């Protein structure tokens, strides 16, 4: 009860914490880019005419969605060296985040492509456009618009998930805060402050997505 809060170690560690925020951003952005690549690739494979390829994608998605990220990142951390890939914790974390986010992205992107009516494709073809043109000029933007809200919340979640990368000591906010905590024993003060940092980071992420959305998807729909 007679504990007095002391934020001095936090203030002292502020430069390190702010730098670590950049680490968190890096993990999040790189993870997202990898997730989108895996997502698009997965959707293409998911449409394959070869049934085993489709099953493989479905199996991948379900495996990732039904196991904790913490277990996934441990597994990848120990598995990569066995297949001859020696990476630092931070790139390892990016790979784990990309794989995890990619599984969710596959489902989201697939939903977006399905949400575009067949009539849009046909109208484009009837006007003499090629399939690739139809996809690029007609399907892509409405499909992205349709999935943007779910993509946003999935990517905010991915940003928060970066904190779990501290389990393999990747360079990001949580692991840096753990270091400051164990040096100062001011556990509550450190974690409370870092929680506020995360709130700001996820808010910034949401603003960023909202900015893109307002800029590129401003056309009215019914």
């Amino acid at each position, binding site marked *: *009860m007679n*504990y007095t809060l002391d934020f001095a170690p936090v203030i002292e560690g502020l430069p390190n914490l702010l730098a670590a925020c950049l680490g968190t951003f890096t993990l999040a952005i790189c993870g997202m880019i990898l997730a989108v690549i895996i997502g698009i690739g997965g959707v293409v494979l998911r449409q394959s005419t070869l049934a085993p390829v489709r099953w493989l994608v479905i199996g991948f998605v*379900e*495996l990732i*969605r*039904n*196991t*904790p*990220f*913490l*277990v*996934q990142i*441990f*597994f990848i951390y*120990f*598995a990569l060296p*066995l297949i001859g890939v020696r990476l630092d914790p931070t790139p390892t974390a990016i790979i784990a985040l990309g794989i995890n986010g990619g599984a969710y992205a596959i489902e989201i992107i697939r939903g977006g492509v399905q949400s575009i009516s067949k009539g849009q494709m046909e109208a484009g073809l009837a006007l003499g456009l090629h399939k690739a043109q139809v996809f690029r000029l007609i399907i892509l933007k409405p499909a992205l618009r349709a999935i943007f809200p779910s993509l946003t919340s999935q990517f*905010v979640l991915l940003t*928060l*998930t*970066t*904190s*779990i990368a*501290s*389990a393999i000591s990747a360079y990001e906010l*949580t692991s840096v805060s753990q270091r400051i905590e164990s040096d100062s024993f001011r*556990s*509550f003060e450190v*974690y*409370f402050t*870092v*929680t506020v940092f*995360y*709130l700001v980071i*996820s*808010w910034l992420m949401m603003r960023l997505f909202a900015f893109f959305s307002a800029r590129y998807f401003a056309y009215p729909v019914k």
Partner: protein
Amino acid sequence: MGRDEIIFLLIGLKWTIALSIVGFVCGCIAGLFIALARTSGVRVVEGLTAGYIAVFQGTPLLMQLFVVYYGLALIGIKVDAWLAVAVGLTLHASAYLGEIWRGAIEAVPQGQTEASKALALSYSSRMKDIILPQALRISLPATIGFLVQLIKGTSLASIVGFTELTRAGNIISNQIFQPLTVFGIVGILYFIMCCPLTIYGAHLERKFAAQAR
């Protein structure tokens, strides 16, 4: 991996299940109040609950567990990791479930509220008999989806130092130096818990979508 290791993992599994159930049940109860407060029509109350939800949805679960763990100690409550994690998961679940159910309550057609009012039903009867049953049905797929997320979230208790399934795996993997086998088995155990729920949720979602047509 020998018999002892397997048993150790299964004990961890037991705690994972216990944490999931406690977090979900308590989270449901607290979440119901959050959802009702969030749709109460009272500006201040709605604003406060919106803030509560935004905080829990805008910060990592891991941080929430840390803050609760050390925060409880701070206000003089001597807690072990188990209780701290249970409280943390409950708060976390209450925010997410509150938001899911708010959406569901608002998705019940306005006419239902109007008809209940016209029939002179009290607030509690209107909610209990008319709105909530419909809202819970609408929200069932999302609720199950969150339960899966919560089960996976219990793995973070291992970082706070509570020996559930993932930490049990960690300990054994350090003993026998077979991380891939151990984490593979741990992953499969989580998968066995989560996958049926995921399939059931997707099934309900399809069923409801078909009925809505």
